[in-house]
């Protein structure tokens, strides 16, 4: 059996092409690997840099937050302790990001503020109610005392007027009678009185 030269030439060409393709693929793989490796290194460096900046910012923010929390009177001691612990834990474990802590802190603060606000509101309402009730009660009590005093005073005034009237009445009648009597009437009255005494007592 004879192999045609043409056929052999064709096979050689195919193999050469196949070889070139393989070589090209290997070259491309190596180049891609190198690129990926460089990219990875660059990414790691970037990531480290970002984390360092974040930690630094976190420390500053935490310190500031601690100062604020320590100085404010709005939070309860229990809340302050919780926030401090949360911040310290986050820093220690490194599991929480700055944003998470801030978010948690913000939620806690808002919640605490709302709770505080509600408590404060309720406390104010209660105190206002107590003060108002007390004031109203006091006012009613004073009003009763005032009315009682007024009634007593009124009664006293009426009694005084009545007493004065009783004292004045005879004098008024006497004055009026004295003025009303003429000389003749007075003389007649004297004589009639003497007559009456004489008859009654027989002197």
């Amino acid at each position, binding site marked *: 059996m004879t192999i045609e030269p043409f056929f052999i030439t064709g096979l050689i060409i195919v193999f050469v092409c196949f070889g070139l393709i393989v070589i090209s693929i290997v070259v491309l793989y190596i180049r891609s690997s190198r690129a990926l490796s460089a990219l990875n290194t660059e990414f790691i460096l970037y990531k480290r840099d970002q984390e360092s900046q974040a930690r630094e910012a976190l420390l500053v923010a935490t310190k500031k937050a601690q100062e604020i929390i320590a100085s404010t009177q709005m939070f309860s001691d229990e809340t302050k302790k919780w926030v401090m612990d949360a911040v310290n834990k986050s820093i220690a474990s490194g599991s929480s990001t700055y944003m998470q802590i801030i978010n948690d802190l913000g939620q806690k603060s808002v919640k605490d503020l709302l709770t505080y606000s509600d408590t404060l509101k309720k406390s104010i309402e209660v105190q206002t109610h107590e003060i108002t009730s007390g004031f109203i009660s006091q006012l009613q009590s004073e009003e009763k005392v005032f009315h009682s005093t007024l009634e007593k005073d009124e009664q006293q005034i009426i009694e005084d007027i009545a007493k004065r009237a009783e004292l004045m009445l005879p004098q008024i009648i*006497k004055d009026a*009678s*004295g003025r009303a009597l003429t000389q003749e009437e007075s003389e007649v*009255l004297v*004589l*009639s*009185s*003497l007559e*009456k*005494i004489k008859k009654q007592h027989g002197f």
Partner: protein
Amino acid sequence: MAFESLVPKTKDEVVELLKILSRVTSFEDAKNHFPPKLYDEVLIQQKQNSSSFEVVSKSIKQYLNSMNSIKVYIPFVASRQFIDEILKYFSHLPNSYVELIVDQSIIGGVRVVISGRVFDESLDTIIDKTIAASLKSHNA
């Protein structure tokens, strides 16, 4: 000893008689200064008892000083005529004279005091009693 003929009717008359008696010291003097009734009484006593003027005068003074006072309170100054009207009510009482006292506070009517007994028919007392009774019944 009663000196009925000289029974004085008012205190003023008693006082006047006592003044005259204290001034006059003899019968002759008495004739010129005594009121007729008093002089008559002196003569009667002198004849009956043959007494001296001093004794008679003393007797009369004692009588006048021993008379009972009848106090009559009236609210105005009375005329002589009205005084006589008042004296009529007491003329029957022996050894007494009337002392008229003007007291406007009695308003009207009269208040009489005889030997400490009070007979009150004054308007002052009547008004007080009437008002007291009225107030008492009103308050009850």
